């Protein structure tokens, strides 16, 4: 019979294991804490650039988006989060009818951030940003129009 299996030995071994645990937590008691204080640290908070929090349309220097209303993002989307509404306008110079973007509607509340739309876009007209502060009181506020 090992000493640790005897009555006294058992007590001693058990106490030793408990004391080791106590020592460990005591050490942590005095180490600096790791908590990051959001929202106090909002100004300094760094989030990875690749983080996906919300879809947006980057604008070029003239303030226009690059969307050509091809609808590839809409068809790539697994759960119809994106709806691209188009309209036909007549080009004044050539007189031809052209399909352009009317409304780019994005439902933040059902997006699964799979990046398929961004991958599908031929013009890099959409991208994800890391602005994560999106909680709202009304479900309808999550359906947003990305273009102006």
């Amino acid at each position: 019979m090992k000493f640790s299996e005897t009555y006294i030995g058992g007590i001693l071994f058990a106490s030793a294991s408990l004391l080791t645990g106590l020592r460990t937590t005591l050490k942590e008691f005095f180490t600096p804490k790791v908590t990051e204080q959001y929202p106090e640290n909002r100004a300094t908070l760094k989030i990875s650039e690749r983080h996906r929090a919300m879809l947006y349309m980057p604008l070029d220097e003239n303030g226009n988006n690059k969307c050509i209303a091809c609808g590839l993002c809409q068809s790539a989307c697994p759960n119809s989060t994106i709806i691209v509404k188009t309209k036909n306008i007549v080009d004044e110079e050539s007189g031809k009818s052209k399909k352009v973007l009317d409304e780019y509607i994005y439902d933040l509340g059902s997006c699964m951030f799979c990046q398929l739309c961004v991958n599908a876009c031929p013009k890099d007209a959409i991208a994800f940003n890391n602005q994560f502060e999106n909680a709202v009181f009304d479900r309808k506020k999550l359906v947003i129009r990305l273009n102006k």
Partner: protein
Amino acid sequence: MKKPNIKSIPYEEFKDNETLEALIKEINSERTNVVVGALDDLINWGRSNSMWSLTFATSCCGIEFMSLGAARYDFARFGFEVTRNSPRQADLIMVAGTITHKMAPVLKRLYDQMADPKYVVAVGGCAISGGPFKSSYHVLNGVDKIIPVDVYIPGCPPRPEAILYGMMQLQRKVKIEKFFGGKNHRAKKGEMNNDPIIVTNAPIIDNEKLSKE
């Protein structure tokens, strides 16, 4: 108008102030006296700073909820850390994860078992609208079909900071309530959101500001 104040984030920087202001107007439509108003403030201060949530998690978002309780994000700073396992003692149910057809009556029952005042936060795409599983035969498309939701936190899953932000939104909503007189939280009992989401006239998002960031 009384504007709810949250430490470290100015009122203007919060999203969806319009809904909140509409709500304030509705609640303040009846006049109350000063003493009762001060008492209301005290009670709302207590309620908003002591949101004990039910430990309810069905899937991925639940893990982020656990991260929120752990050392790095530590929602104890807000006083939210007393998570209760019994719905009777909880003030808040965080629907973190997909709600399926089989789970829906259970969720409803949990909600009914909670003591007033009770709040619901829908965390993540699944709880808001069915998210990735919108088209599934066995998934409820949005918990607001069965229980009234106070705050929606989008994301799949939302990062812990986003959940904290959502909790602060809820605090704002609690801070405008009226316990004495006026319309309080119970008034909306039974009002479920069953109308479909209309996608036209969607609010325009400020792209210029986003592009800069």
